């Protein structure tokens, strides 16, 4: 990736604008990884420590992995070393958002929709996000998901990581990633549906 090489060269020269670029581009992904491993309360500290480790080790970045993979691996390692042994066991929490999910109650006994999805007034994400109340509502839903669900969703949708990368970073199985992702998506869907139907959160 030529742009990446260029950015790394500028970082090695100590160019401040390059550092700013780097942080702005990858901070979100690093935060999602940190939250998934240590929780929200310690995530910012982990991210900060990870950035300092990045600066210390930049010379050693061999370019075998992508820059993003390297940064996220450092973040995961920093987070794990803080975690010590008390890894949370409840991986497959079934926490849903404030507007529920698409569960059995929506289906008849024969497996067909009992309450079919309502038609939204638009299929345009931009149009939907135009409304401040909806943006707030989505933030609220994301905040009520479990930290692991939220992180998996962020890493997949916003950071476009592949599922195997998410498994590796967070030490969770492929099938668990799929379950977490599915639950998070259905909660988001339920929030949008609820907002479209009622106009409020």
């Amino acid at each position: 990736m030529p742009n990446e090489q260029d950015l790394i060269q500028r970082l090695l020269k100590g160019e401040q604008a390059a550092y700013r670029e780097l942080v702005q581009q990858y901070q979100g992904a690093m935060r999602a990884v940190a939250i998934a491993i240590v929780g929200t309360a310690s995530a910012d500290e982990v991210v900060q420590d990870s950035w300092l480790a990045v600066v210390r080790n930049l010379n050693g970045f061999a370019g075998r992995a992508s820059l993003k993979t390297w940064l996220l691996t450092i973040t995961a390692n920093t987070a794990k070393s803080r975690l010590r042994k008390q890894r949370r066991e409840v991986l497959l929490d079934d926490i849903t958002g404030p507007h529920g999910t698409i569960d059995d109650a929506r289906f008849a006994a024969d497996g067909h929709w009992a309450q079919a999805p309502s038609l939204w007034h638009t299929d345009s994400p931009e149009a939907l996000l135009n409304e401040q109340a909806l943006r707030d509502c989505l933030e609220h839903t994301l905040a009520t998901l479990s930290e692991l669900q939220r992180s998996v969703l962020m890493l997949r949708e916003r950071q476009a990581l592949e599922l195997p990368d998410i498994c590796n970073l967070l030490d969770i199985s492929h099938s668990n990633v799929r379950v977490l992702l599915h639950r998070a998506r259905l909660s988001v869907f339920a929030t949008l549906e609820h907002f479209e139907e009622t106009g409020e959160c």
Partner: protein
Amino acid sequence: MLKCKDLVALSSDLLDGELTLKQRIAVRMHLAMCVHCRRFIRQLRVSQRVIRQLPDQQAPELETLLRAMQAQQQRASEPDQGDSSK
């Protein structure tokens, strides 16, 4: 035959390209016949794009962080004073 409920259960795997060939065919056949599930999948994709485009909540302490990184970087470029001081 795949039921609507089964289709919803497979919907994330559909989005991520995780379906087996057999599942893919079953899903495609169901969607060809079921308007409700077509709407569900379409709007699920919309909600996926909504999450992608939801504005980022910018970390407030960016400047502090950048200063700390700059300090770290200067330490690193002066040999004998870096990590070995500990």
